């Protein structure tokens, strides 16, 4: 006779925020500082996804579970949100994500030809990653640098207009690490940390403002001429 199958715990339990296990203590501490900046935790979801990408280079399922616990949503909600955004990669990407814009201004400046050259020289199609995991090539939408076309970004750093020749040099430099000082690994977005006002004062300020408003209202009421009944 087999043991009776234990009754599954209520689904809620699976949703209870667990302590982060994947994100490093430093990332978790930065995440908590970010969360404190917003009136509602969930607002930090996307900034936290960027932080997770800074740690791992892409948004891993384990990181999404941690983020879900930190901001109080389900891992599915993190995935469902992250998958909406081009910059959040739920699949591994190369150390360098090379984005070639082919939108209108760049198209008029030869971007389609540049992308074709990039695909040929890297041996991958747009969206693909080189076998050595160095470069992911992306066909990007407008990156707002339209006076230097065709516009190319590496890990969201502008590298200026590129010709097929300069593009090959760029890739060679990336492979040799020659531009690592200027271009951080993929995922690192904002290297400047918030230095002030970290303990969010907005709630305290809002409370003061509420008290002021109440006081003002009371004052106005006291100063208002008494309504004359039947006038």
């Amino acid at each position, binding site marked *: 006779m087999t043991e009776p199958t234990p009754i599954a715990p209520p689904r809620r339990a699976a949703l209870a925020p667990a302590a982060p296990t994947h994100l490093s203590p430093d990332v978790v501490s930065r995440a908590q500082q970010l969360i404190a900046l917003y009136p509602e935790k969930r607002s930090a979801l996307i900034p936290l996804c960027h932080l997770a990408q800074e740690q791992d280079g892409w948004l891993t399922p384990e990181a999404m579970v941690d983020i879900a616990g930190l901001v109080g949503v389900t891992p599915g909600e993190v995935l469902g949100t992250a998958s909406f955004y081009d*910059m959040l990669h739920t699949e591994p990407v190369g150390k360098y994500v090379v984005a070639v814009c082919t939108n209108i201004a760049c198209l008029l400046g030869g971007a389609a030809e540049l992308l074709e050259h990039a695909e040929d020289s890297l041996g991958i199609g747009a969206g693909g990653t080189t076998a050595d995991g160095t470069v992911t090539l992306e066909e990007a939408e407008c990156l707002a640098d*339209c006076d230097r076309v065709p516009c190319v970004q590496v890990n969201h750093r502008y590298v200026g207009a590129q010709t097929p020749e300069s593009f090959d040099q760029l890739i060679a430099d990336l492979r040799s690490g020659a531009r690592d000082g200027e271009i951080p690994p993929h995922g690192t977005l904002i290297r400047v940390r918030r230095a002030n006002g970290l303990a969010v004062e907005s709630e305290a300020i809002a409370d003061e403002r509420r008290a002021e408003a109440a006081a003002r209202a009371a004052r106005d009421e006291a100063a208002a001429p008494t309504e004359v009944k039947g006038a």
Partner: protein
Amino acid sequence: MAITDPPKIVTARMGHDDSHTLERYLATGGYDGLRKALAMTPEAVAAEVDTASLLGRGGAGFPAGRKWSMLRKAPVTYLVVNGDESEPATFKDHLLVERDPHQLIEGVVIAAYALQVTQVFIFIRGEFALGLERVQAALNDAYAHGAVGRDIFGSGFSVDVVVHPGAGAYICGEETALLESLEGKRGWPRIKPPFFPAAIGLYGDPTVVNNVETMSNLPWIMLNGGAAFAALGGGRSTGTRLFALAGHVANPGVYELEMVTTTFNDLINAPVLGGGIPHGRALKAFIPGGVSAPWFGPDQIDLPLGQDEVAEAGSMLGSGSIVVMDDHTCAVRAAWRITKFFSRESCGQCTPCREGSGWLERIMERIERGDGREEDLDLLLDACDNISPGLNWPPQQTTICVLGPSIPSSISSAITMFRDEFLVHIKEGGCPYE
């Protein structure tokens, strides 16, 4: 008067390599506008902006002063700055956040004071990594300088400002989608009514959403007065504006020009500005205000750079981006690429936009490839009509937001202006420009 004579309002510091630093900002009158504002009542500051008649610089061109006056009175209100610049070929806010972040922050605090909000979020598109770093660094310095935070310059006014990075989605430039994104969700626009941000915005509280360039004008307006700003330009289009010039011109770039008194011809052809079309080619068409705008031809080049003037001519000044196409440009290919952009960026909520953009893109692609059919032109216009009935300007819409009705602009412009070119693609089975 020369085109370059009017004052530089938002690009005054751009000649300096260190224009993004607090030192340079303070050495060039930085935060004086804020000090002046803090000595006035919030109502007086708002009145000054009203006098300036500053039209929003994001794309819709709604007067900033009126937007502020519509903010519902509530204990908690927010100011959100829209720096999600992603309308193709628009790159003016890119310049402002990277090169003059303090000017933006000063404008933001002035607006916060006028609106009496306690919390500001500056939403900057994620692809502006340097811009995000520059604004965060400037914000750190501004807090230390006493220009942001508690009891600003001893005035008793306090406000917290947070820089929020986007994650790559064109739709987040739409203000209600931006608010959703700021709440940690997909950038899905909210339906208006009832979700006008001034009534029900961030976390359901009243919220003003203003563009980066709009904010960046405020320090100058405070220092020089709304009347001085309103004296520039003409009609409703007051002041100067940043025009991002791209495409087939000798000198693409961002130019700050007085509105209305300057024309598209000046911008495109003046030697000190666009410098004309290179390689001895001629103008074929230009897009006057971002790819959501209907195109203009050479006969409309003398139109003034004014919001109402461009609207009356059947298009829009929109985001202030002008794309120039020379006579070697394939109109089909240009319109196809713009359609592909909308197809990729449709948020997926509304059927006409989600499905329509995909079908339009595939039909445009097959015409460009040489597999088009003659009935495709009617099919394209029919599909466009389903998204924006009547294909009029300003457009009707069947969708929650204006991304949908922006899709037909390039297609119907290209078909109207260059029908023969479509027919050549179809009859000869390929692109004649290749």
